């Protein structure tokens, strides 16, 4: 039996140790770049889950791909967002923004692709303390523009803070992988351990001059002028422009590892904490007997506990057979808890009492939103 006794392992031409060994604990710290799991703070970074399906035209706050949000000021923006199959090797999907009206942003206008991360999932970052950890963002992008694009990390809790870094696109309309490392933020009061927004990441697409004049390449107290510092392109200046993004990963440390691929079910369940589209297999939602005093329940159980009691929207038109007159059309807006939604209907007379989507097509049902 033989052994190697060293304190560290470093590439012959490296400037840092790849593996550091600790004698006291007989352990090591290794900068492994592949096959690590559960390290991505971004949900749906591979753009695989799109519960709302279809496409969205010019809508802020509309989720085409779960967890992602187009975030735009007022202005004559016009675009279509879709889940696309144009993607780099190893990925199946991307978020596509198709510009449909050319627009040059005025000073106060902005347009970004954004994801908000729940605060309770970020406590290990030690944000706001001396031990605050660095974060590394890696992603694949296909932009119609060469040059510097900005990506901002925004922290809203306590003292609002922002750090903005840029990546440079070398070739237009070509998939390129980018990696950006953000400093740990030792100031600002930290991230409150709750179910609100802890961090927000914005891939800037087009911004006015109000957002680019203050250097925010180190963490600063939030100021509009620093939000998109260094951003130098306008993705929306031509209707021929398409912007694609996928493989987004945000992880602790100062290097980016290979994208942490998940199976669809894992990503879907993560997404369901914030949004769930219930699509029944048939037109009936509930069915029972009522004599005028018996209330017939209808339930939707969520796959995972949602972030808050969600807002619900009914898709399609529901009819209540033998429903009490003027009564529980409340079925159109079930009560919601974090784990389930329910409502009751009562018969107007004794007999079968039920609720159903009177035109059943794929897509009818309820949506539940507990988005950040």
């Amino acid at each position, binding site marked *: 039996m033989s052994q190697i006794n060293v304190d560290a392992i470093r590439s012959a031409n490296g400037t840092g140790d790849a593996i550091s060994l600790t004698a006291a604990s007989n352990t090591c710290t290794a900068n492994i770049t592949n096959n690590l799991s559960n390290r991505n703070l971004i949900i749906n970074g591979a753009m695989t889950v799109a519960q709302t399906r279809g496409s969205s035209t010019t809508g*802020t*706050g509309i989720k085409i791909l779960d967890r992602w*949000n187009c*975030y*735009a*000021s*007022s202005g004559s923006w016009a675009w279509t967002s879709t889940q696309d199959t144009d993607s780099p090797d190893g990925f199946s999907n991307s978020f596509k923004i198709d510009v449909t009206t050319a627009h040059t942003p005025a000073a106060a206008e902005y347009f970004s692709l954004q994801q908000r991360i729940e605060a309770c999932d970020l406590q290990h970052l030690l944000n706001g303390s001396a031990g605050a950890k660095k974060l590394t963002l890696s992603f694949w992008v296909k932009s119609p523009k060469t040059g510097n694009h900005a990506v901002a990390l*925004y922290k*809203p809790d306590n003292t*609002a803070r922002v750090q903005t870094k840029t990546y440079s696109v070398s070739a237009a309309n070509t998939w390129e992988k980018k990696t950006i490392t953000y400093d740990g933020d030792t100031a600002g009061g930290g991230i409150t351990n709750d*179910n*609100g927004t802890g961090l927000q990441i914005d891939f800037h697409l087009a911004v006015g001059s109000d957002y680019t004049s203050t250097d925010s390449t180190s963490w600063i107290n*939030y100021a*509009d002028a620093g*939000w998109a510092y260094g951003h130098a392109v306008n993705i929306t200046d031509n209707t021929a422009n398409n912007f694609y993004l996928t493989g987004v990963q945000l992880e602790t440390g100062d290097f980016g590892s290979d994208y942490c691929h998940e199976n669809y079910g894992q990503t879907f369940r993560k997404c369901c904490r914030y949004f769930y589209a219930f699509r029944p297999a048939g037109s009936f939602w509930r069915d029972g007997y009522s004599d005028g*005093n018996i*209330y017939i*329940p209808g339930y939707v159980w969520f796959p995972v506990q949602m*972030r*808050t*009691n*969600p*807002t*619900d*929207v*009914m898709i399609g038109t529901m009819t209540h057979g033998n429903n009490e007159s*003027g009564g*529980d059309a*409340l079925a*159109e*807006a*079930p*009560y*919601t808890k974090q784990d389930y939604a329910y*409502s*009751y209907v*009562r018969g107007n007379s004794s007999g079968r009492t039920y609720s159903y989507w009177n035109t059943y097509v794929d897509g009818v049902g309820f949506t539940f*939103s*507990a*988005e*950040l």
Partner: protein
Amino acid sequence: MKNPNEMTVTAAKYVKAVGPDGPSSSNSHLICTIDDVKCGVPLDTGNKHYQAVLKWVEAGNTIEAAS
């Protein structure tokens, strides 16, 4: 930070809870029209739609009482 994703509330009405034994006297949630979409909104301050309704009330609007 500016929040351009603020929603437009145009109507809000309380709904009384209905359980297996029938309606109760307390409000359980709201039926609202937000961004032209009819939706049920829980009375949960962590819910962003309820936050939007509270801002709408602060602006001088009134939530209609339950039927």
